[in-house]
């Protein structure tokens, strides 16, 4: 079967969840070969997980280079030339998108960015925050595909995972990394990966009152989100913004508190499976897409809901 290159996403010597999603998606188009770029010994540590998710080969490109992302691009570029894969799969993270774009420029490949599904004939995109579904295909060999995190259900499969060492070619001019500080995740799940999101809008009224949103989120094991209006008003930090100029989320359950539901916001959450909205204004557009809408005061409804859930858990 034809080879598919998968760039392994790893942190602190462990495969990220996105790596397993990529391997699962890769199996629908060919035989996955995992490409590991990192310091010596990285590939050996990741191999077991990669084999358990169907990696037929593991290419280990070991380097201590402080060059920023260009080693990954150069390794993939030389592998594309060497093995002529049917596709290259990379996660649609900030780094992944950049690596993919640069690779596509170098290999003259189609760039199919931010796909939500992959098939032998092409990919599916979710456009404008899920307002459109589009199918796209490559007009070149070895398309470079980035896959949106959380869009593929991980399935295990045994792979031979034979290790092969590959060289890291020199990559020309590059930025150099001086230091790295990985983000320190809080106790709450990551916003884009959470299965439940509780979000607050302008109706929350102040930064202090966001405690109401957080309280409900914590009893549900949910991530906290905020609308642009709330972020612009300084109630909550920007990295939690859901919407067109923030994160796109698609959880099982989305609870919107005091959010009017401007298109800006809906574009980031309208593909959520179940949407519950609490808003004082019965005309708020959020109610047009809510499975359950409560016209009322969030300061009364949310604490009561929190208490009910806590009671059920006890």
């Amino acid at each position, binding site marked *: 079967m034809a080879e598919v290159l998968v760039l392994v996403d790893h*942190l602190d010597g462990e495969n990220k969840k996105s790596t397993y999603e990529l391997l699962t998606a890769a199996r629908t188009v060919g035989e996955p070969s995992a490409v590991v770029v990192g310091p010596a010994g990285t590939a050996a540590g990741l191999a077991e997980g990669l084999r358990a998710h169907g990696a037929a080969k593991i290419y280990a490109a070991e380097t201590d280079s402080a060059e*920023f*992302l260009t080693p990954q691009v150069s390794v993939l570029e030389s592998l594309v030339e060497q093995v002529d894969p049917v596709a290259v799969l990379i996660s649609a*993270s*900030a780094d992944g*998108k*950049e690596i993919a*774009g*640069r690779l596509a420029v170098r290999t*003259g*490949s*189609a*760039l*199919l960015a931010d796909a939500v599904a992959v098939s032998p004939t092409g990919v599916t995109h979710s*456009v404008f925050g*899920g*307002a459109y*579904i*589009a*199918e*796209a295909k*490559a*007009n*070149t060999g070895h398309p470079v595909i980035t896959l949106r995190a959380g869009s593929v259900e991980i399935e295990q499969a045994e792979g031979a995972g034979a290790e092969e060492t590959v060289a890291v070619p020199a990559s020309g*001019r590059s*930025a150099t*990394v*001086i230091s*790295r*500080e*990985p*983000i320190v995740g809080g106790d709450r799940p*990551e916003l*884009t990966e959470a299965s439940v999101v509780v979000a607050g809008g302008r109706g929350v009224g102040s930064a202090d009152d966001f405690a109401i949103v957080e309280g409900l989120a914590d009893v549900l094991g949910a991530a906290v989100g905020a609308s642009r209006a709330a972020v612009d008003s300084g109630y909550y930090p*920007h990295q939690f913004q859901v919407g*067109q100029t923030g994160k796109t989320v698609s959880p099982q*359950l989305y609870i919107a508190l005091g959010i009017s539901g401007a*298109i800006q916001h809906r*574009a980031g959450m*309208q593909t959520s499976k*179940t949407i*519950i909205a609490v808003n004082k204004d*019965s005309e708020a557009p959020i*109610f*047009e*897409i*809510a499975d359950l*809408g*409560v*016209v009322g*005061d969030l300061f*009364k*409804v*949310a*604490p*009561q*809901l*929190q208490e*009910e859930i806590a009671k*059920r858990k006890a």
Partner: protein
Amino acid sequence: MKIVVLVKQVPDTYSERQLSDSDHTLDRDATDAVLDEINERAVEAALQLKEGDGGDSTVTVVTMGPDRATDAIRKALSMGADAAVHLSDEALHGSDAVQTARALAKVLGTVEGFDLVLAGNEASDGRAAAVPAMVADVLGLPALTHAREIAIEGSTVRVKRETDDGVTELTAELPAVVSVGEKINEPRYPSFKGIMAAKKKPVTTLSLTDAGLDASEVGLANALSSVTSSQPKPPKSAGEKFEDEGDGGSKIAAYLVAQKLI
């Protein structure tokens, strides 16, 4: 220092955006078009760098897009940019990210001796978040992306790059490409004086030929990838809605139980 800012006109994110039925490209006529917010921040960053070195720098805005993208150019010029270059040609319609990066690289080639290329990290319409790095790759330049802080020290640029994964400090020798993130700054509003001055600033319009491009290198028909179908997702319909009568929270809890969500 010679600074170039890549900007893009996009549909207003507060409007309902559509794909055209005929060729699945962005329906640019269906929505209001604005200078992308992130590009305002890129222009602001350029102006601050210029002000920081006593005004010796020049700021040139580069865009690729239909004729009406001149509105986006005017906005950047009224903020304080000095000049603009506009690649405008019918043949560009439907160009993909790789074609766009190559075309922008060609246009940058017409701006003599630039030191720094600034851009937004991700456009609000395409959201590929890759074009600045792709342009850098075509030109063989370092790319320092998602900048939260930019500092120029002699012939070196230092950037604090912030993404969901954390903060990385990067450095490179100029010339280089830097893309800015949301936290870089708050863009200024154009002053009345700035708006008046913008009318007199030079805007060079380039056709494909002027930029040294061939029609076979760009456009929908020559794109490296094609959208084969697109359809609006059926809108989610409204479910049940009720007024809170003191038991709203309990009713939501009951709903969640019934839906097996808790």
